[in-house]
């Protein structure tokens, strides 16, 4: 099984460490070897930092990519935002020599160079392609019977012309990954609607962001979902942090935490105390 440089990002390690812990445990159980991407920074965030300065965004992303290149490993991310930034930056730098040269002028100041070879993958994609649904099922020791809402988020699949993970309008990958645990992914209206947090909306126009979230929550409730399962700590934060105010109480789990549960990790090890919307298993 392949080995990956584990990119932590910001929200998982600094707000929901249970997501980081579950990812480490689950990957170990599934034979996916993770090596910390030491010294990495924020990806940096695609909707805010890139919107402020694309030059900064690309150079800082290239530094992260160069750290992995030095280790000779592809990157594994557990966040759609990190995946969006690092994948997009790697793609641009692999296809534009002039841009790569410009970025290397900046990296020269810190004695680094990026050759343009790092590959970037999302945790969910790695489990699906490398371990496979049958391989995952073989490691489930505590089958689940919940009805859940699969929440894909945006940057896991889009822009699909460069990512190519799954159909961006009608994907199946996360539903299949969820159902490998025995849980049932419930159909619902507007399944691909954004959580609302991205693009700096949460920070600058939180009320607008919450309107997106509220539509999602209403559709999830109507579907009979008992849990929301996401693949992005930022979507996770948006759903977890706004429900009380919006009058909902559907607990939120990252896919790694759902797998942790299904593989027998204790509730304590999932770090659920950091969740704002209470999770009662």
């Amino acid at each position, binding site marked *: 099984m392949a080995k990956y440089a584990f990119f*932590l990002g*910001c*929200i998982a*390690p*600094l*707000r929901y*460490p*249970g997501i*980081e*812990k579950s990812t480490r445990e689950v990957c170990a159980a599934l034979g996916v070897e993770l090596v*910390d991407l*030491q*010294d*990495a*920074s*924020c990806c940096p965030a*695609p*909707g*805010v*930092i*890139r*919107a*402020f*300065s*694309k*030059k*900064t965004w690309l*150079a*800082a992303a290239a*530094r992260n990519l160069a750290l992995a290149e030095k280790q000779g490993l592809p990157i594994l991310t557990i966040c759609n935002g990190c995946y969006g930034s690092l994948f997009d930056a790697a793609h641009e730098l692999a296809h534009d020599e002039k841009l790569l040269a410009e970025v290397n002028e*900046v*990296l020269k*100041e*810190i004695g*680094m160079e990026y050759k343009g070879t790092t590959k970037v993958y999302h945790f969910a994609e790695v489990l699906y392609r490398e371990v496979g649904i049958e391989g995952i099922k073989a490691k489930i020791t505590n089958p689940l019977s919940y009805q859940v809402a699969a929440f894909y988020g*945006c940057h896991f699949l*889009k*822009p*699909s012309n460069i990512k190519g993970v799954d159909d*961006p*309008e009608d994907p199946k990958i996360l539903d299949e990954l969820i159902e490998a645990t025995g849980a049932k992914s419930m159909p619902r209206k507007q399944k*691909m*609607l*954004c959580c*609302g*947090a*991205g*693009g*700096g*909306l949460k*920070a*600058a*126009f939180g009320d*607008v*962001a919450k*309107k*997106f979230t509220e539509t999602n929550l209403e559709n999830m409730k109507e579907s009979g979902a008992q849990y929301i399962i996401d693949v992005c700590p930022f979507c996770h934060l948006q759903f977890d942090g706004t429900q009380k105010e919006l009058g909902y109480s559907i607990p939120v789990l990252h896919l790694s935490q759902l797998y942790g549960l299904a593989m027998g990790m204790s509730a304590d*090890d999932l*770090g659920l105390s*950091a969740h704002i919307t209470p999770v009662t298993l």
Partner: protein
Amino acid sequence: MVTPNPDFAKEIAAAGGEEVKMCFQCGTCTAGCPSGRRTSYRVRKLMRMAQLGMKEEIINSEELWECSTCYTCVERCPRQVPIVDIIIALRNIAVAEGHMYDNHKGTAKNLVKYGHTVPVKDDITALREKLGLPAVPPTVLSNDKAKADLDKILAATGFTKITE
């Protein structure tokens, strides 16, 4: 009356949004935009304003910052216009001219201070330890040299300045 300003097209192109000229105003973007359903933001209109060179109207508008970068418009655009890239280019121009929301400045300052977009919190540090994780994540947060390297990148690319 709007006086077209072709110079702005060059500015947008330099910021990475050259393909705005490909937009033929069909409105598929606006029809599928989740933000447009909830705000006065209209993607098609923003693309047209960019084509016409309505710089001041764009960089002073709230709508420029109401896109959640969900890429629904990009997926559905029949001309494959990279709309999100264009919005990023327009936002870069706005920020360079001093248009930045306080909360966004806060996020940017976090990056400068921590190397991450959110601050370190004591209760989370305690939870990390309880989970058997290193109290400080093995990122720039635990290596001063790595953080200094990031700082140099932020300074060299003009980022530190926009947060002042």
